[in-house]
């Protein structure tokens, strides 16, 4: 669908044009929202709810590792404000968004690319077009919204679990009440830090869903293209993640 000559510019512009079309269509008319509501809910369940287990494991471990490594290298690490600054910087501002996004790429990015690739081969995309239903509106947008909502939620959840993991491990080195722990954390935490974390998750979500969706829709007629496009979806998503993480950080510290 988007691999043909609907865009007469260089193929390098194919994905940016696709991304622009998705962003401008994000808020759908009621006629389509009725049809795509189920898809949105299923995407949130798959991307968000079903990933809670693995996110908990990763987050808890990261939080614990920060304490273990910190205390190994810096004396009284857990009792200094440097500890809380590290938690905010490493967990909330960076790892929360990135690790969550990597997990979403591995689970949902591949699923979206594979599913849409199969649909492309079985004439399902053309069937939607023949019914007058835009494949972009029916397939891509609810998935994008679902991934964005899930990623923001998972990223916040990751940060909370990492904090819990850090607090639990820190009790082995120096006992501290959880309320005291939170109180000391909030002295270091700024609203702009939360905003940075959420905005990163928002952008990562859009990138992952649109890159995976775009690659899935590029499948022409051979089933052998599906794994190739899925691999591209993963690789390009990871690349975009890293590039935009750097750009957002630069913007954050400049502003």
């Amino acid at each position, binding site marked *: *669908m*988007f691999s*043909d*000559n*609907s865009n*007469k510019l260089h193929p390098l512009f194919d994905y940016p044009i696709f991304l622009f079309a998705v962003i401008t269509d994000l808020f759908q008319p009621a*006629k*389509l929202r*009725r*049809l795509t509501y189920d898809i949105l809910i299923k995407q949130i369940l798959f991307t968000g709810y079903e990933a809670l287990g693995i996110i908990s494991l990763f987050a808890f471990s990261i939080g614990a590792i920060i304490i273990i490594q910190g205390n190994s290298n810096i004396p009284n690490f857990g009792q200094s404000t440097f500890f809380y600054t590290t938690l905010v910087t490493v967990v909330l501002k960076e790892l929360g968004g990135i690790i969550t996004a990597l997990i979403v790429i591995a689970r949902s990015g591949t699923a979206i690319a594979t*599913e849409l690739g*199969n*649909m492309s*081969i*079985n*004439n*399902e995309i*053309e*069937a*939607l*077009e*023949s*019914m*007058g*239903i835009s494949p972009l509106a029916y397939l891509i947008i609810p998935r994008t919204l679902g991934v964005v909502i899930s990623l923001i939620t998972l990223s916040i959840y990751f940060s909370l679990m990492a904090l819990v993991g850090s607090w639990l491990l820190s009790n082995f080195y120096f006992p501290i009440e959880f309320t005291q722990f939170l109180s000391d954390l909030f002295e270091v935490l700024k609203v702009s830090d939360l905003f940075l974390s959420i905005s990163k998750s928002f952008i990562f979500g859009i990138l992952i869903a649109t890159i995976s969706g775009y690659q899935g829709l590029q499948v022409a007629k051979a089933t052998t293209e599906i794994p190739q496009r899925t691999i591209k979806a993963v690789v390009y998503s990871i690349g975009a993640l890293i590039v935009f993480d750097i750009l957002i950080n630069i913007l954050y510290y400049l502003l």
Partner: protein
Amino acid sequence: MICNLIIRDLTTYSRKYEPDFRFNFNSNDDRLIGILDSDEASSSFILRAMAGLNAGSTGSISLKMDKTSVSLFEEKKYSGFIFSSGGLLSNLSVLENFLLPFNFHFPDVSENEKIEKIEAMLNLFDLSREVLYERPANLSYSVGKIIQICRIYVLEPSLIFYEQPFMHLDLKHQNKLFNLISEYKKKEILQIFTTNFYPALLREADRLLLFSKREYIEEGEWTSISKNPSEKTIEIVESFKENGNEN
């Protein structure tokens, strides 16, 4: 609703952005029109281009009805396309596949009325309502094709495109479908098809357009074309005579 299909300067482009197919068409009073090409893929390509499914095409495809005229590039409410294979959404049940276009184009129709129409259409092809709760992957090719056909018919379109309509169907259902096509022709629903067998459909057609690898050759009724085939059309004519399926 009686309609006319008017195509002006429809142009499709190759990957190098060069025009590779140009087409003008007017259905006039003809109700059953066939597209035949020596190359099966080309006849499908032409049919899909006529239905406005070829992205990147330029030109106009207008469906003129009594008081309105719509562009097939933008509005598909009055038309339907039956694919040679596939075409059902694999992540939905058969019932959900039926209801998707129904809910999109006719949201005000009650649920009961929709189900009644769907069941009536399935009965025409001797399918039970249990099939509604199956997934397309669990269906045979034949049943899947019938579901696709029924999904279009329940919407009562004014224009129907058939891409190899008899492919995957057993003989009983081929004949049922042929009878339905003939019935719709009498009701003056515009139908455009491609086929590479079932000569009875060619004889029933008001007009056939013959192409050779997307290059237009001639048009006319089957009786006149088959009696005096030209050098370019003889291959198409002979392929229908040789398949041993003269109904």
